[in-house]
């Protein structure tokens, strides 16, 4: 359904280009849940925004293709793109739950995308909005409330309802549960899983939290320094992480069912994407790195269905 090939998205700044997404590919089938993992600055949000071409003015897709049902979004005309946005692919932005319009009722805000993208009457749109409110687990009577009367968890449900307003096939969620308490996090996770099943929805979940990906996604793509370092189904990745960054990252999350010890950290800090190193971008922090890794980015090695970009595997 979604094929991202050799995607390159750079930001233009005074000093040059920030290579936020540098040659990334992944693939999503119908009904699949893909997790795009990585820490701050690795390019995951940029990659997701590139899919719907909702990039800020100083960013541009420099190369590659984003094939949605065979059509390349990168080369699409604006008119065609508008038909895809929200109706086929929608997105829940990071922190969006805090950006709700404080002077508009919830139901009106959910109805807004419907009115914008489809030719329906206001009454119909509001009707559908009310149904969506219930659909995401909010009591129908609260639909006419204002955002400030809702808790964080409820507002996030509203954002999900908005994303579902035009019945898309693919929903991108950028850090949907990061700012929420663990119980609310779980509630939202369950909601998304439930919606996926009921609607045969495909989802791309962007997060730095590997635990959340472990629990909710089918596949995972790990990004580091703008590059894709590992890509496989979730079970294989966690049981047998091939890339040193992946195993380092997994070990960085303490496991309450494991032993009681300080999780391991990865020394150093992420690369400067303005002037990234020539060879493997993780090499400066990698315990297995050697002379080999300073050469231009390592060849992609595919291990069955388990892709990894590393000299050492």
């Amino acid at each position, binding site marked *: 359904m979604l094929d991202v090939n050799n995607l390159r998205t750079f*930001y233009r700044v005074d000093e040059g280009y920030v290579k936020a997404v540098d040659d990334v590919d992944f693939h999503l089938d119908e009904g699949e849940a893909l997790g795009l993992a990585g820490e701050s600055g690795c390019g995951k949000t940029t990659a997701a925004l590139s899919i719907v071409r909702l990039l*800020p*003015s*100083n*960013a541009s897709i420099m190369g590659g293709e984003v094939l949605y049902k065979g059509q390349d979004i990168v080369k699409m005309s604006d008119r065609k793109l508008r038909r895809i946005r929200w109706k086929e692919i929608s997105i829940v932005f990071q922190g969006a739950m805090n950006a709700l319009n404080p002077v508009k009722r919830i139901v009106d805000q959910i109805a807004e995308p419907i009115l914008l993208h489809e030719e329906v009457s206001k009454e119909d749109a509001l009707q559908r909005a009310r149904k969506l409110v219930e659909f995401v687990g909010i009591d129908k009577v609260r639909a006419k409330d204002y955002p400030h009367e809702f808790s964080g968890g409820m507002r996030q449900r509203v954002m999900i309802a908005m994303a579902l307003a035009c019945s898309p096939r693919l929903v991108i969620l950028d850090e949907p549960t990061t700012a929420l308490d663990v119980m609310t996090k779980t509630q939202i996770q369950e909601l998304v899983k439930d919606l996926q099943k009921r609607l045969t929805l495909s989802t791309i979940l962007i997060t730095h939290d590997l635990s959340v990906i472990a629990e909710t996604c089918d596949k995972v793509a790990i990004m580091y320094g703008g590059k894709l370092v590992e890509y496989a189904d979730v079970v294989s990745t966690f049981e047998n992480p091939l890339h040193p960054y992946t195993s380092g990252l997994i070990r960085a999350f303490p496991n309450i069912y494991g032993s009681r010890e300080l999780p391991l950290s990865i020394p150093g800090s992420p690369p400067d994407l303005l002037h990234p190193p020539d060879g493997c971008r993780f090499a400066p922090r990698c315990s297995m790195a050697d002379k080999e890794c300073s050469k231009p980015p390592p060849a992609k090695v595919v291990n069955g269905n388990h892709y990894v970009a590393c000299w050492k595997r």
Partner: protein
Amino acid sequence: MSETLIPFRRNLSQFWRVYSGSKKGVLGLILVLFFFAIAALAPYISPFDPSKIDPSRTWLPPNSVNWLGTDWFGHDLFSQMIYGTQVSLVVGMFATLISIIVGTAIGLFSGYYGKMLGEFLERVIDFFLVIPYLPLMIVLVAIFEAMETPIPILWVVIFVIGITGWSGTARIIRSQVLSVKERQFVERARAVGAGDFRIMAKHILPNVFPLVFANAVLTVAGAVLAEVTLDFLGLGDVMTISWGMLLHFALSNSAVYRGAWWWIVPPGVAIILLVMGFTMIGYSIEEISNPRLRGRKA
């Protein structure tokens, strides 16, 4: 996460780089520097002594000797215009200095202290904000002049403009202080044991300063206008040559009726240009200091 106020004193070169990209900022700077140059070089570039009277050459339009003509007394207007620059700038800057000091102090205290003191000061600021500044200035100057104090009137004018113009600054500073004092590093300072005065002086003021600077430049524009207005009304120092005084004498000697445009237009245009210059600089700095005023920066 990002800072809205650029650390000013260290990043002067970085600041200049951004500032020089702003067309109106550079234009404003050129205008202001132009007038500063004239004021500084007045004794050297003025063809005549501005107070020199030549009774044989009165009411002359611009000619080869008097480039801007002469007034009813025979003064060379070009020289008067040049020397007038000094007064505008001096009064403008000094009055602004008073405004800024008073305004920042009151704004700082009012913003930092809540409850009684803060609220009281806020009312004071509001009070001064809504009072029409022109009648207030007129009344104050008149009182001073009636008291026949030995203080030179020019200082009275500076003082009056200063203490009627502080409220704008105070309000801006106050609202900025209100938000800065909630920031975590202020809480840290408190947790470490810093007292109120130290927090205000070392933490809040430096983080509020860039806004003070932008506001100060705009206040100078207002102060120059205020000075011109007072002079024009005849409330300023009649003995001092200033653009406002030129206009005052022009109109009180029926320059319009006599068609002596050269007595009115040059001071008017000069005032406009100088005030515009300061305003452009002020807005430029404001835009740079407050990224929200700029276009969307991803």
